[in-house]
């Protein structure tokens, strides 16, 4: 943990905070249907789209209609991506003549991109045509992100409204999210990335002659190299901003064409947490008490910094086995030190650890280093952040609504402790809300542990495991955690592109996304219909350091209690064995 790493992390946090308020305020205006400075430019387009699709933005929906609209859109997107993959061989924009994707992989990928997971069982540049990448995956990158944000907007309205049956219009929320938030931000970011050398082209892969031919293991000389191209920059921008994470290239953001410079790396990392962080402010602004938004933000940040510190410390310590063999792993003038296996030298320990933490805190899943190569404790941080349920910043929209559901549980217990029927932001938390909130807390645990157990029992599951013993458990546990919480990052080391994993992980992704969205919207509907109790001294304040600490405690405790035994048999025992 060098001073330089802390300076880089400090810079990152400062940049994140700086953007949170202005962007959050802007998004609050968008979701409240107020005018923004982008309206003169985009409002005609918005109105045109409504007219085309015959949408009346003022027509409000109750929670069931809202949920139905969201599910229909996602189902349509899922089918579209599936069809594109299966039929890409006969469709245009396929210069490399890619064949149809196998059914199980196509299903997995379709679910993956519809559910904002962006788990990739396939290698992008060797499987997908440009058309599939752009109209299938690229479009889903926007729509799945916008779905999460729209659901969040409806959820916040549940708190903001009083005695109301409706939560807003899904189609309007979706259109506004894409038009006013995602598109302008992606455009800006992709231009910035192109300036750093990220490729953006519709040309097929280029072949270049090597200046220094090499000989491979078989003894054959290699004189040429294939340079993959494609519309990468535009896709990378939304992949980061929409917490999608699906890379254009297989090695994701460790690929030099996807993430060439320290600046592009910084911008991409910032983009990962940008919207989830700003949405906290949006929440505070929409419920007319920005302190509440900052309290949630701080709770997330505390857990984030805790996990980051663990990973950074563990990675900088290096590999104890190597130390035992006399290798110098100290940071010094000439080397970064620490565990550099699976990390890009141009990013080093700090930027790899920061990226790994950010990408798993948010349900992003893009990587710039190989998480499988992390030290056991270094990999534990990202793995556990995913297992907390992707609520520490989390996916755009989904992270915050997940955290707010935990806040509801925290308020319920704390409310009892102060002798009042619990209420959050003036809304009484009663049987129905607790029922739904329990589901939200329960489903990821069931999918992750159930899926992992099934894989470890079946030959089809065990066969794909690369490393035996504790590390093998980590690999499978990571895969199901990533899918069940819609993160999408891979630990690697597990051959997940098999029918077994494609199907089980696909189902985990479906459960982790839609079985959460439904109870969340149900809570929103129930809350919106309630009266608001006035604040008094008897009301539990939910913006104080005490409550922030309590919320962090509840999240950490539930996460720890649910996964401690599994982690003990995975990374923890692996760490103890290394010593």
């Amino acid at each position, binding site marked *: 943990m060098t001073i330089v790493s802390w300076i880089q992390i400090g810079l990152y946090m400062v940049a994140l905070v700086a953007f949170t308020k202005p962007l959050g305020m802007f998004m609050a205006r968008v979701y409240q249907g107020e005018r923004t400075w982008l309206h003169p430019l985009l409002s005609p387009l918005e109105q045109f789209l409504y007219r085309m699709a015959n949408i009346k933005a003022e027509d409000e929906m109750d929670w069931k209609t809202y949920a139905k609209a969201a599910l229909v859109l996602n189902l349509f997107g899922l089918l579209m991506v599936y069809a594109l993959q299966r039929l890409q061989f006969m469709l245009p924009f396929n210069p490399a003549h890619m064949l149809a994707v196998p059914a199980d992989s196509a299903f997995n990928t379709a679910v993956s991109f519809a559910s904002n997971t962006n788990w990739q069982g396939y290698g992008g540049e060797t499987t997908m045509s440009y058309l599939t990448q752009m109209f299938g995956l690229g479009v889903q990158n926007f729509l799945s992100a916008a779905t999460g944000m729209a659901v969040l907007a409806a959820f916040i309205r549940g708190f903001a409204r009083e005695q109301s049956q409706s939560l807003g219009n899904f189609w309007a929320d979706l259109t506004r999210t894409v038009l006013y938030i995602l598109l302008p931000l992606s455009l800006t970011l992709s231009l910035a990335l192109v300036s750093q050398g990220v490729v953006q082209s519709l040309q097929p892969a280029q072949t270049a002659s090597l200046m220094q031919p090499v000989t491979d293991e078989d003894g054959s000389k290699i004189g040429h190299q294939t340079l993959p191209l494609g519309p990468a920059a535009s896709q990378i921008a939304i992949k980061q901003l929409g917490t999608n994470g699906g890379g254009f290239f297989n090695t994701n953001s460790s690929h030099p064409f996807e993430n060439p410079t320290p600046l592009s790396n910084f911008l991409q990392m910032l983009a990962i947490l940008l919207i989830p962080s700003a949405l906290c402010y949006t929440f505070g602004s929409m419920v007319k008490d920005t302190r509440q938004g900052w309290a949630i933000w701080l709770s997330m940040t505390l857990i984030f910094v805790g996990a980051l510190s663990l990973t950074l410390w563990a990675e900088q310590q290096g590999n104890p086995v190597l130390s035992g063999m006399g290798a110098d792993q100290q940071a010094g003038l000439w080397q970064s030190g620490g565990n550099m296996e699976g990390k890009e030298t141009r990013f080093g320990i700090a930027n790899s650890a920061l990226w790994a933490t950010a990408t798993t805190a948010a349900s992003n899943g893009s990587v710039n280093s190989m998480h499988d190569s992390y030290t056991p404790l270094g990999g534990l941080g990202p793995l556990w952040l995913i297992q907390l349920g992707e609520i520490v910043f989390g996916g755009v929209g989904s992270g915050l609504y997940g955290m707010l559901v935990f806040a509801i549980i925290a308020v319920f217990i704390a409310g009892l402790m102060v002798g009042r029927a619990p209420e959050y932001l003036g809304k009484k938390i009663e049987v129905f809300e607790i029922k739904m909130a329990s589901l939200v807390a329960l489903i990821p645990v069931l999918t992750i542990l159930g899926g992992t157990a099934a894989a470890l029992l079946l030959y089809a599951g065990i066969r794909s495991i690369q490393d035996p013993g504790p590390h093998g458990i980590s690999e499978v546990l990571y895969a199901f955690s990533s899918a069940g919480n819609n993160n999408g990052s891979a630990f690697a080391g597990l051959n997940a592109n098999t029918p077994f994993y494609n199907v089980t992980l696909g189902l985990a992704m479906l459960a982790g996304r839609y079985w959460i969205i439904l109870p969340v919207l149900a809570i929103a509907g129930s809350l919106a219909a309630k009266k608001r109790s006035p604040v008094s001294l*008897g009301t539990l304040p939910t913006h104080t350091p005490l409550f922030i600490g309590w919320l962090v405690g509840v999240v950490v405790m539930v996460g720890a209690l649910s996964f401690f035994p599994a982690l003990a048999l995975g990374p923890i025992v692996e760490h103890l064995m290394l010593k």
Partner: protein
Amino acid sequence: MKKTITHNRTLYQQAIKESFFKLAPSKMARNPVMFVVEVGSVSTTLLWFQALMSQGDAPAGFIGAIALWLWFTALFANFSEALAEGRGKAQAESLRQMKQQAPAKKLKRAWRKEGSKPTENDWTQVSSTDLRKGDFYLVEEGDTIPADGEIVEGIASVDESAVTGESAPVIREAGGDRSAITGGTRVLSDWLIAEVTSNPGDGFLDRMIHMVEGAKRQKTPNEIALNILLAGFTIIFLTVCATLLPFSIFSANASQQGEPIALTSLMALLICLIPTTIGGLLSAIGIAGMDRLIRRNVIATSGRAVEAAGDVDTLLLDKTGTITLGNRQAVEFIPVNGTPIEELARCAMLASLADETPEGKSIIALAKEEYGIQESLLSAEESNPMEFIPFTAQTRMSGVNLLGHIIRKGAPDTMIAHIQSQGGTASDFLKEVIDKIARSGGTPLVVAKNGQTLGAIHLKDVVKGGMRERFAQLRRMGIKTVMITGDNPLTAAAIAAEAGVDDFLAQATPETKLKLIREYQQGGRLVAMTGDGTNDAPALAQADVAVAMNSGTQPAREAANMVDLDSNPTKLIEIVEIGKQLLMTRGSLTTFSIANDAAKYFAIIPAAFAPIYPQLGSLNFMGLTNPILSAVIFNALIIVVLIPLALRGVPYRPLSAAELLRNNLLIYGLGGLIVPFIGIKGIDLVLSLF
């Protein structure tokens, strides 16, 4: 004292017996957490048999010990519930004794209300169980009242000690606010005719018995919500434990040493992890909360009302009886026309000598204490014959005729008329004084001697001692107090300011009360109020927590969701505290229960997996020799340790929500993390002695 000890012994014996009966799966299934404990106990017992017969997956002694303590866990939880119920049952028993069948004098249909006492020909002798709603009955001196009723005729003194525990007889009469009578109480004098208001088995006493027995106890909304959350936790831990088996099979294969986790250890882990502490004590907490109300002589018709009481943020309090002593007290003599103040005091005292009302007594007390008028000073005059003139509705003044002097006191308008009729005049100064007293919230009396005004007495509504502090406390708890009074706004404002309430409703009528409650509720507030009159019934029905005085009318008692047997309006504040305590106990024990799990993991996980991965032994930093058994024993014993807390409730202090949360988090959250480490280590040390 001796009686309570034997009483307690039978109570405990009964509870121990009950806790075994409660093991019936049909009863356990009502509580998901404890049901899982029972399933765990049964399966470990089966594993024990298996180990005894042939090869078990662990030593039979170990499995047997675990099974035994798992059964204890279930029994301890049942014991807490049985103990809480037992306390109420004893009370129900004594209530039931007076609910024996009583003969009733049912009036014939032909009988018409005619103002005179019915004769023997007008009624027939029936059993109390034959009376139905709408029947009329007669009760006479010495009769037991056969059923709840509303008096239609007569006035009588009634001994209600069976219901209220108060030995002084009370007056019950037709009309007005004291027209309800309760079945099982006894008429001491005179007679009454009443209309039956409830069918047999449905009366007030029956409901009371049901409530204290907990027989009709339904889970309250908040309890249901907590139960769901606990069930959620239970499912999470079930998943954790169920999936641990495949994990350990894979690990054992991979490390090629050790055996997969023993089923007994897995069961032990499961029972330790699920929130048994709160799950086991939850129903005892609810019953005990109700019991605390009953001990304060308040009967709630639903548990929901008790919970809502904790939640109330607006209290509507009747001025008379709740905030003020209910009778006016003399606080000052104000002479006019140059009368010496001693003369005024002396005459006021003389005029009040025969006045038995609290006002009259307070005038004498004031004259003695403040102006030193001794009875000895009067003695000279006292020897002379005094002719006392009592207060009548016609004259509206009282006084004394002594040595030819006519001394009178009374309300200003009557007195002014009296003075003028005697040829005197009322000065402007007198009128000014009268006005001033009225404006300050007091009641003026005028004293005159032989038609000459001597001065005025300032009678004041005296605010009860300690009310101001109490209201300040309530304010700190976030509860708003509103005083309800029939006084004019001027008087009301003065008293409100003196008592320190947050708001007041002056010149209150049943309609304005109802309107006020609706307004508060519209603003999202939960309102509690007390009432006794029939005209209070609509407001009582509207309020979230409504406490009727037992002395009140039947409609008021029907509309309310609680009845205060002592008819003490101040009790509303205590009811709120009991409600809060109930919720706090639930929340605190939930936090404690979940926080306990951390220590149990550190005890059980290393031990359970040590055969596969000996390296995990370094997590056993407590250095336990019998880790799994110690954790299970701790888990069972902590229930017993916490029973007193569950029955008593966590101590309540009137603090703001933020302070309460800080205190309870420190005690039950942090304490819940630390205590089991110490407890498990301690139990392990004891076990290692054997």
